């Protein structure tokens, strides 16, 4: 039996314990321990993703107990794509944090929390059991609340509490959906629920689907359930906001898609749900971009931008669900392309913004006037990522938006994508003009004593931004990866087959 599916969870959990131990015994080596854990985890994630992409789905039965008695973990080509994003995320966040220089108690604890958070996200990605999914979602929630409230600033505790309230409602709805599916099918194993889904009573299927959409809608910031995100990202700070927005949010998108397509069989049983997602996607784009345009705080502006970009992903997803059949593969691939691009672009934006905010000691946009001349590396990375996220050709952001637009069957979503692009050009352009102003204020605050020359941090954000730009010119290579991943979602034989074979062993 190949142990990779369970190792992607076990390694960061053990690593979090190791980081805490090193932090207690030899605090100076804590960052090295965090980097070692991130490297080991990322290597395992890439190995699992490679197996999932190149062969049949990888099945793992914990304790060799086959479903429905035991818990199954599985890596197929669809989950492999998200494992790759997690590999980038864990390694990049460890590299970025090496030079943070923050020695506060909460900052020290956050290295272990980040490892646990990535363990939970990996668990969400590989699990094939509904209740196990709920547990990993809750573990991710607990870690994210810890990361949000880790700052000594009491406003972080208030934001953490608001996020916790939202997460509690989300968790309650997910548990409700799991309970409904268990009562209706007698199992919580995804492959077995998927088999029974077409025969479920319509009201039970509808209740479970609605609960899952609202539950993950809160997590990914669907309007109007996005109320907690800007406040939370602002309080969490740019380092954590990047992890939550670029990686945590994407894994919750993965969970929503997996549940809709696989256990619920929504494209076959309840195709109308994708029309609702289409409308929600357009509302997210317009609301997110409009709020970002009137926002005066850089972190909150980026948070509203994330809300808008969830809308682009949903447009691709909705198009796939409405088309149905094997033709849906292209629309899912477009949604996945934008998911991957947003991961690169938003992590680069938040982490390069961290340096700018750090130098000016303020995240208000007007206080960042002329900051570009004090951190040229960071502003270059920020500008490259901004070009990509606006959708300027030939960047990856342009390519992904183009593919999402091409997947649409109506004119209105395409017009909304165009309007969103224009609005984002306005607010990113405004920030660029302010940041590159030639007349910086005379009384710029003295640089913060910590982290004065973060060369590694700048190199990481530059690499992410360049990758986001270059992906647009490498669409042939990217396309084959995306189509393979999309087939994993649409062609469920890859996912269901091994599970049923496993059941018979």
């Amino acid at each position, binding site marked *: 039996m190949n142990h990779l599916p369970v190792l992607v969870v076990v390694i960061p959990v053990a690593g979090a314990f190791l980081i805490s131990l090193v932090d207690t015994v030899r605090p100076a080596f804590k960052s090295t321990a965090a980097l070692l854990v991130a490297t080991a985890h990322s290597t395992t994630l890439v190995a699992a993703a490679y197996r999932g992409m190149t062969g049949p789905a990888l099945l793992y039965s914990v304790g060799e107990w086959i479903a429905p008695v035991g818990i199954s973990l599985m890596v197929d080509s669809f989950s492999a794509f998200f494992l790759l994003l997690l590999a980038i995320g864990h390694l990049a966040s460890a590299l970025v944090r090496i030079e943070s220089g923050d020695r506060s108690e909460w900052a020290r604890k956050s290295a272990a929390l980040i490892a646990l958070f990535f363990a939970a996200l990996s668990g969400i990605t590989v699990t094939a059991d509904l*209740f196990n999914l709920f*547990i990993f979602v*809750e573990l991710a*929630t*607990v870690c994210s*609340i*810890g990361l949000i*409230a880790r700052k000594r*600033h*009491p*406003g972080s*505790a*208030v*934001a*953490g*509490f*608001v996020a*916790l*309230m939202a*997460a*509690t*409602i989300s*968790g*309650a709805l997910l*548990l*409700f959906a*799991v*309970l409904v599916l*268990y*009562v209706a099918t*007698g199992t*919580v194993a995804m492959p077995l629920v998927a088999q029974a889904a077409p025969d479920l009573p319509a009201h039970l299927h509808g209740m479970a689907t609605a609960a899952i959409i609202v539950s993950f809608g809160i997590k990914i910031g669907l309007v109007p359930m996005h109320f907690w995100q800007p406040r939370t990202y*602002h*309080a969490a700070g740019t380092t954590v906001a990047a992890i939550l927005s670029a990686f945590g949010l994407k894994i919750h998108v993965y969970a929503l898609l997996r549940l809709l397509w696989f256990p619920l069989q929504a494209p076959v049983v309840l195709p109308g749900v994708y029309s609702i997602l289409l409308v929600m996607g357009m509302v997210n784009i317009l609301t997110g971009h409009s709020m970002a345009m009137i926002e005066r*705080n850089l972190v909150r502006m980026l948070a509203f931008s994330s809300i808008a970009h969830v809308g682009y992903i949903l447009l691709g997803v909705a198009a796939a669900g409405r088309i149905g059949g094997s033709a849906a593969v292209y629309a899912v691939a477009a949604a996945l392309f934008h998911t991957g691009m947003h991961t690169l672009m938003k992590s680069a934006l938040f982490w390069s913004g961290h340096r700018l905010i750090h130098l000016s000691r303020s995240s208000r946009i007007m206080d960042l006037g002329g900051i570009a001349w004090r951190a040229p590396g960071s502003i270059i990375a920020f500008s490259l990522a901004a070009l990509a996220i606006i959708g300027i050709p030939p960047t990856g952001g342009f390519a992904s938006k183009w593919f999402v637009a091409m997947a649409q069957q109506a004119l209105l979503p395409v017009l909304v994508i165009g309007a969103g692009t224009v609005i984002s050009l306005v607010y990113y352009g405004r920030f660029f003009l302010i940041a590159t102003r030639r007349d910086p204020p005379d009384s710029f605050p003295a640089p913060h004593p910590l982290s004065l020359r973060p060369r590694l941090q700048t190199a990481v954000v530059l690499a992410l931004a360049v990758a986001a730009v270059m992906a647009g010119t490498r669409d042939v290579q990217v396309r084959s990866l995306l189509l393979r991943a999309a087939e994993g979602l649409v062609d469920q034989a890859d996912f269901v087959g091994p599970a049923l074979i496993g059941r018979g062993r």
Partner: protein
Amino acid sequence: MMQTAAYLTAAGVFAIGLYGMLTQRDMIKICISISIMDSSFVMALVAAAYVPGGAAPIAGFEALRFVDPLPHALALTAIVIGAGILAIALALTVAVYRHYGTTDIARLFIATREDS
């Protein structure tokens, strides 16, 4: 009949918890509401496992009907998760009260907006 009554009770308890969570301004009362919501799920899980005349599924024990132990395992896990979330919520409440001297979430929103 028994199962339906238990589901309805669980739904009622959940509604009380949700109402409290959405309408109360005090963080302690919101924590209590979260706890009530968690309890409703435990009740629903226990109700889902109910089999009239069912015996415990112990190896070697013979009976006409067995109770599925899965919901009980889920209920135990849900209790643990709920306790963890509640502990964090209370810890945040204490941290906020020490700084602002209030647990009124509406007043805290105004205070934190002024801080930022």
